[in-house]
């Protein structure tokens, strides 16, 4: 009785997203690609937050804080750690098999590379200097986020609902303040620059793309998004998803039925934090600059609104909600005039989403997308229940 139509539609949608950049060719190509990349980026947050909050019941506001940890973790490696083929003799450094690792002194908005530049001038031709490989940076960021997730997961074990939310709001704000204040390391509000995803460009199917080209970044973010979604779906549908929902519903009852609630709560924090951190590191490299303001409460609220409007208890619905809303946010930017009064849409569009959020919470607790999916998937359930009851009554 459970319909499989939404699943098929999902595969078709994923295929269309893969083909889209190859067939789209309008003049605003780069702009549209950028919108999609941003949409995927938000969809990663909304869907992973849906697992944490919708499945696990952990209504955390620290999701973007984990993102920032991932981004800054990668950014610090990107800016202050280099691999060279020769020792500099002047910088702080140590050798590893096959390379020399140079640790530059963080110098805030000043130039950190002074000792490296000086050493390079004396080196023979052919000596190489490279940044820490991108994948390693991203893995480091993800590890940092996951580790923080474990710590937060442990700290909030005994906190429920409102207290968990307050705790994580505080935590997120503390991190933002620290990132703003520790200018020597993070360059504060000036932001930490990051190298592009493909510093030397990349060749895909015989076509070369420069470092600033949108298409490679589109595929990187799409891959991360679809990979994340596949992982989240797998978790959600496995016994882990069942355990998470059971502890969301009633922790004591779940525990009394043999569910190790502490373990799974921690696990969902680690997993979703690592996902957020990975997305943060990748996005940092794509945008080229990371700032503390990416984790203001408004941004976190936006992620929550996306997940809630899409559907909190369904990772796919949350992702679709995020994609629709990030596009809507962009297209609602256009100002217009009503009866001689100009409406500033850059501000008013947020009012629109506030209203949409309130209406969803009031009338569609399952969210717009998830509500529709549930309607399709569970259409026959009520009738089935009644039919079965009638059948048993007749046999009596």
């Amino acid at each position, binding site marked *: 009785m459970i319909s499989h139509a939404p699943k098929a539609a999902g595969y078709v949608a994923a295929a269309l997203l893969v083909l889209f950049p190859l067939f789209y060719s309008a003049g605003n190509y780069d702009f549209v690609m950028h919108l999609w990349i941003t949409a995927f980026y938000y969809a990663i947050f909304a869907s992973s937050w849906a697992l944490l909050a919708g499945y696990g019941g952990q209504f955390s506001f620290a999701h973007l804080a984990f993102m920032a940890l991932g981004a800054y973790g990668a950014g610090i490696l990107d800016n202050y750690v280099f691999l060279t083929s020769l020792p500099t003799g002047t910088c702080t450094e140590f050798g590893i098999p096959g390379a020399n690792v140079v640790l530059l002194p963080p110098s805030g908005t000043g130039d950190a590379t002074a000792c490296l530049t000086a050493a390079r001038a004396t080196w023979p031709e052919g000596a190489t200097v490279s940044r820490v490989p991108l994948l390693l940076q991203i893995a480091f960021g993800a590890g940092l986020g996951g580790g923080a997730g474990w710590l937060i997961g442990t700290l909030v074990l005994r906190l429920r609902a409102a207290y968990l939310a307050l705790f994580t709001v505080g935590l997120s704000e503390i991190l933002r303040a620290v990132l703003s204040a520790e200018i020597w390391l993070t360059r504060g509000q000036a932001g930490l620059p990051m190298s592009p995803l493909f510093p030397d460009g990349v060749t895909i199917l015989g076509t070369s793309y420069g470092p600033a080209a949108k298409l490679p970044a589109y595929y990187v973010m799409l891959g991360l998004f679809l990979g994340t979604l596949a992982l989240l779906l797998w978790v959600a549908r496995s*016994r882990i998803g069942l355990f998470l929902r059971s502890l969301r519903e009633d922790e*004591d009852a779940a525990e009394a039925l*043999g569910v190790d609630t502490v373990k799974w709560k921690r696990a969902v924090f680690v997993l979703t934090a690592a996902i957020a951190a990975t997305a943060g590191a990748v996005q940092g490299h794509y945008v080229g600059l990371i700032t503390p303001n990416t984790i203001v409460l408004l941004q976190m609220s936006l992620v929550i609104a996306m997940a809630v409007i899409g559907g909190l208890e369904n990772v796919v619905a949350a992702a679709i909600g995020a994609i629709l809303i990030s596009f809507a946010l962009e297209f609602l930017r256009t100002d217009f005039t009503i009866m001689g009064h100009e409406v500033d849409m850059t501000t008013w569009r947020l009012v629109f989403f506030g209203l949409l959020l309130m209406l969803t919470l009031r009338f569609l607790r399952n969210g717009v997308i998830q509500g529709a999916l549930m309607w399709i998937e569970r259409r026959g359930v009520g009738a089935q229940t009644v039919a079965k009851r009638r059948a048993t009554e007749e046999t009596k």
Partner: protein
Amino acid sequence: MITLDVKDIRKKFGSHQVLNGVSFRIEGPELVGLIGPNGAGKTTLTNVLDGAIKPDGGTIRLNGKRIDPLHPYEIARSGLGRTFQVTRAFRRMTVLENLYVPALAMEAGVNRKEMEEKAHEILAFLTIDHLRNEFGRALSGGQQKLLELGRLLMLDPDVYILDEPFAGVHPSLMATIYKWIERVNGEGKAIILISHQMESIFTLCRRLLVLNFGDLIADGPPAEVKNDPAVIDAYLGVEEDMSGSGLLRQEASHA
């Protein structure tokens, strides 16, 4: 053989001694009633047994293995399961999903097909099979009680503790619960039944434990406990206790 050995359990909340050295031993497929006035410590004892509350002193051994230092989920997996006084169905999960939680928690690699068949069999037994794809919240109060009993069967512990399974349950559902208790007991499992419904307790149980202000004041066959002056004084004889005393008096006079 199943054994539950409870020795000298003590628990204080602040200066209030809730359990004052409670000891008893259950051997084999016993069906034990745990009764006592409100505030006697019945639910606290249950919470101590299932690990939700750690006792200040004393030991609990299940089948010879000490379980009192364990987490509740470890105790559940060791073979002690319980229901709650206030029903705790997973409301936003389907009836089947409710049943799968304990099965999957017990064994990661459980055979899915066997698990599903077992769940269907249990739901049919409990007369709620037609509701299997409905959410827990769609069930009536009585049906949610049945759902809790079904979940417990999926956990399949050695010792079942039922906290007020009859509270607010219609007589027709009551028959199902009676059947359920007979089935579990017939499978060789021990049951501790907490209830204020003296009729059920006296019908079902062959042994009664009576708690009063944290003390175990009686332990024996119902006929014996019923006439124990200390028990009558503490519990059965109290006129205000509408749930039990009237019925019991009738029964006592018939006996």
